[in-house]
């Protein structure tokens, strides 16, 4: 099998699986799930074959897709180091989540649809990863959006899913608008959207890098990675089934934004990078605060995802794409773990999602609880766990480049530890606070095994030395770069202290503030105004809601009214009515009286005579 064939298979296997499910297995959920998981496994194998076969050189292959005059689109693969790293992560984590879903979705009536959606998603995601040009990225980018829409809306009879899926798609579209324009402009600017060619061009002509195009392009990233101000869809997307949240909204899809940034990093000028850094930092802190006002276990994790995406963006903006990628990978491991853990908890608690109604799960679901704890620690950046390595690197980079960013990111780390502590202490310790929680049972094996594997990865995933050869070259390169940066060792020292302090203080603070297995939120009790402020999340949703219902819909209604009333009513009907009135008027001329008719003759004669006069 040539590498290109392997890649093609990697891409097409999930599509085939989705098609098979859609056409033949709609009513056979069991078979569908098996097929989908098998496809995930197969594609995982294929992807590793391709990665192995890659060696050091990038795999490049391209086919013409469409051409009109000057405009040519090709579709092709570019499997370089970054793509390979990403591909390995996505296919592996994806497989785990597929397996987990087997258990989680077992009793779901629309199992087939769900697994079909997962397969479509894998197809689209792998498409993004492998794409060799911007247009192809955009194609799969949109498809990812669509599959996410489908999966968020899985529980389609609930109003929540209905609204959330719609919101996710539309908000993503807003970002894609900019992305699209960026691509279009880039095409005519560079004459191609091929990543390799563009990179060569910019290397040869650095002046070609254009801030405007870059600004448009990163709109796509903002939408997909849920950055300001398009972050609103991500927390709502938790309406989907939990494995979906894990797969899409933690490990892969949102990370696609970061991945995209890394892929086009050569197109971004310094100003844009700075903007991205600040944007990321802001989101990191903002999301940290927001998480404190959430009681839904998945929503807390969602805000934590937002916050971590902020870290990645900050790292990228600071000039270390490798470190961003590093954090992306480790984050994928532990966030998938956390979400799956949450899924396991929800599964165990019969779809109870409020952490203040759980409690005592450590005893009832020990494996879940322990793996969850590992995830929490990894997220907080506890020394030795996956999160530590990447987060530390980010903080160091921040410290080296911009002190304010460093301070804010450290604050973010502290907040992370705080809300994760809150989540863990309240949900897993103490006594059960609801029937559901008290009857919780450990999840079946299909769900537990992925948890264990991910927990393992969360522990060791950060040790880049253990990674297979051929993966993570960019990460190593950037880490090296960081290590050799000026003032690295001092900063490293500082970060160790501050970073550790952040998680220690955060976790302990939460422990003491909220207490073990608390029944309600202490913050809401003692400082309701602060809690309300946090819960309001800077009123983004309200502003958008206001815009939609008061501005956009009203404006649309006015236009619609004008269309019906003015255009159709007055102008069209009006002119028709005018003809009608004229017709009535003309009709009255036919009075039936001979005299009146003779006057016409007289008038006609005189009129004709007037024409004679004009000639003379």
């Amino acid at each position, binding site marked *: 099998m040539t590498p290109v064939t392997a890649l093609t298979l990697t891409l097409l296997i999930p599509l085939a699986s989705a098609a098979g499910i859609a056409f033949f297995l709609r009513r056979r959920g069991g078979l569908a799930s098996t097929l989908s998981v098998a496809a995930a496994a197969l594609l995982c194998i294929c992807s590793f074959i391709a990665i192995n076969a890659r060696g050091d050189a990038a795999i490049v292959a391209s086919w013409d897709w469409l051409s009109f005059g000057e405009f040519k689109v090709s579709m092709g693969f570019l499997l370089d180091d970054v793509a390979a790293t990403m591909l390995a992560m996505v296919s592996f984590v994806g497989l785990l989540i597929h397996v987990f879903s087997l258990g989680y979705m077992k009793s779901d009536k629309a199992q087939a649809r769900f697994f079909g959606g997962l397969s479509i998603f894998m197809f689209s995601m792998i498409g993004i990863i492998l794409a060799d040009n911007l247009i192809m990225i955009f194609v799969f980018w949109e498809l990812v959006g669509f599959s996410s829409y489908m999966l968020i809306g899985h529980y389609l009879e609930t109003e929540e899913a209905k609204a959330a899926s719609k919101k996710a798609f539309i908000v993503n579209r807003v970002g894609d608008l900019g992305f699209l324009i960026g691509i279009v402009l880039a095409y005519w600017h560079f004459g191609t959207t091929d990543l390799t060619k563009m990179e060569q061009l910019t290397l040869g002509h650095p002046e070609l890098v254009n801030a405007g195009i870059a600004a448009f392009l990163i709109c796509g990233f903002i939408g997909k990675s849920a950055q300001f101000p398009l972050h609103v869809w991500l927390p709502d997307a938790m309406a989907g089934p939990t494995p979906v949240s894990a797969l899409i909204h933690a490990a892969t899809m949102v990370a696609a934004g970061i991945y995209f940034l890394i892929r086009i990093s050569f197109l971004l000028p310094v100003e844009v990078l700075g903007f991205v850094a600040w944007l990321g930092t802001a989101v990191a802190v903002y999301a940290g605060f927001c998480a404190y006002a959430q009681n839904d276990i998945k929503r807390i994790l969602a805000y934590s995802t937002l916050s971590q995406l902020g870290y990645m963006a900050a790292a990228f903006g600071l000039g270390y794409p490798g470190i961003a990628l590093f954090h992306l990978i480790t984050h994928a491991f532990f966030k998938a773990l956390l979400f799956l853990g949450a899924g396991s908890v929800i599964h165990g608690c019969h779809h109870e999602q409020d952490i203040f109604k759980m409690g005592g799960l450590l005893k009832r679901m020990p494996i879940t609880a322990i793996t969850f704890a590992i995830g929490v620690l990894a997220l907080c950046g506890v020394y030795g766990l996956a999160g530590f390595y990447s987060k530390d690197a980010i903080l160091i980079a921040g410290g080296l480049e911009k002190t304010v960013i460093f301070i804010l990111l450290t604050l973010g780390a502290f907040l992370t530890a705080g809300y994760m502590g809150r989540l863990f202490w309240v949900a897993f310790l103490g006594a059960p606070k609801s029937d559901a929680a008290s009857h919780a049972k450990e999840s079946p094996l299909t769900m537990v095994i992925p948890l264990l594997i991910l927990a393992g990865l969360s522990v060791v995933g950060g040790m880049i030395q253990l990674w297979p050869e051929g993966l993570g070259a960019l990460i190593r390169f950037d880490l090296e770069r960081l290590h050799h940066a000026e003032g690295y060792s001092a900063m490293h020292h500082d970060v160790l202290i501050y970073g550790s302090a952040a998680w220690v203080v955060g976790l302990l603070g939460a422990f003491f503030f909220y207490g073990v297995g608390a029944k309600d939120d202490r913050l809401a009790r003692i400082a309701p105004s602060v809690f309300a402020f946090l819960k309001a999340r800077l009123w983004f949703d309200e502003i958008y809601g206001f815009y939609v219902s008061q501005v956009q819909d009203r404006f649309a209604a006015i236009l619609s009214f004008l269309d019906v009333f003015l255009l159709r009513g007055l102008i069209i009907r009006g002119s028709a009515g005018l003809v009608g009135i004229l017709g*009535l008027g003309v009709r009255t001329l036919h009075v039936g009286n001979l005299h009146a008719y003779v006057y016409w003759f007289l008038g006609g004669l005189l009129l004709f005579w007037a024409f004679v006069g004009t000639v*003379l």
Partner: protein
Amino acid sequence: MNEGLADFLRGIAATNEWWYIMPEILLAVLALGLLVLELLSPAIRKHVPRVAMGGLGLILALLLMVDCSDCMGANGQSAFGGLLQSNEWSHLMRVFFVFSALMVSYLGGIFLAGRNLAQSEFYHLVILVAAAMMLLVQSNHFVMLFVALEMATVAFYVLVAYRRTSSLSLEAGIKYLILGALSSSILLFGIVLLYGAGGNPALPGASGDSLNFDALESFIALNPDNPVVLTGAMLVLAGICFKIGAVPFQIWVPDVYQGAPNPVTAYLAIASKAAGFMVLLSLLHGPFLALQDFLLPVLVFIAAASILFGNIAAVMQRNLKRLLGLSGIAHAGYLLIGVAASFTIEWVDNAVVFYLITYLLASFVVFLVLSLSGEGDDADLNIERYANFSREQPFLSGALTCGLGSLAGIPPMGGFVAKLLLFVAAFQAGLYGLLGVAVLGVVISVYYYFGWIRALYFNGSSVTALGEASNAPTLQNRFVLCALVVAIVVLGIFPAVVSLV
């Protein structure tokens, strides 16, 4: 055989001019024969309609077999001391008029059946009108023109008032008579002025026979600015405008169309209008050729006004015969576009004739359906009475739809090609404003034509349907309708059949 017969006739024609108008004479003989038959026993009288139609059919067949326009020699040759002159359309128009007479007789058979009205006189008059119009379009002399015109008009007065038991018909008759006589006097005064000016020895180019078109043509070419000539031409034009129902002499049209018996309305709408247009064309190409500066704006004005008036008035009209009359005004307007363009565009005359032919076929379809649908007085046929007509009478509705489609100018009906040709001509002649008006008119006309079609098919009205009252058309009627519709479609798809375009 054809050539041989033609040669034979040509040989005779060289010695006797009456051969030139053999079809007209045959018609006259047929008309007289009908009166004679009327005198014979009632048993024979019953066959009068059949004899009339058979005779007309024979003459039509003869005309189709033998191209008599050739018998008079080459085109443009005159006969009877210049009273008649054949032109490229005279043969076609003969066929046209005989065919209309045939169709009107057919409609008349339906109309007269069951009515206590004189029978053979109807056919007699119809045939005489046809003969008179055939002479009219060939006339090359104002005396001939006047006499033929009056012949047709007088017969039309009778025909319009033919339903003497109905005061509506009589009222239409008196209106047509008075307005017709008025227009005749106007026309005559114009002729007189032309005659006087053309024969005035003190003017250049004066001729001894200034009633003759050719003489007038050469005279007017030398005196195009003479006010008497212009006034005369203006008055003649006014007289013809009455015949073709063009603004501002159109006002009689709806009343007379409504009151006249159905077949007569059809005859008026089709043959009378066609004759008027042919006369107008031969005048414009003959005597009035030099008056372009004066006539063009007048014609453009008349055309535009007719299109707008006819269409706008028809929009709110519910009575179908009035509606057809008003739409006929609009059709006159479209035809006048061609007439106005004929100053500069040579082939447009053919387009006008083609338009007349499609108009003939479509109108007969419509009138035949009108005649076949329902009982009682055809003067109060309203659109509302056609609600749901298609349920009971799908065949009639289908035919009517085709006919109306052709009148509206919609492919693949002949009416579309006809309008298209006129538009092309107008474009070539640079009559852009007129074109705009025409387009507007077509758009408005779609409203009422489709309003009617909609009424046929619309199923939600509680009005008692006319369809139930009508009997299913006989096989014969079906055949005639089918033939007409096929002819319309063929003209739309393959216009070459009439060898005009």
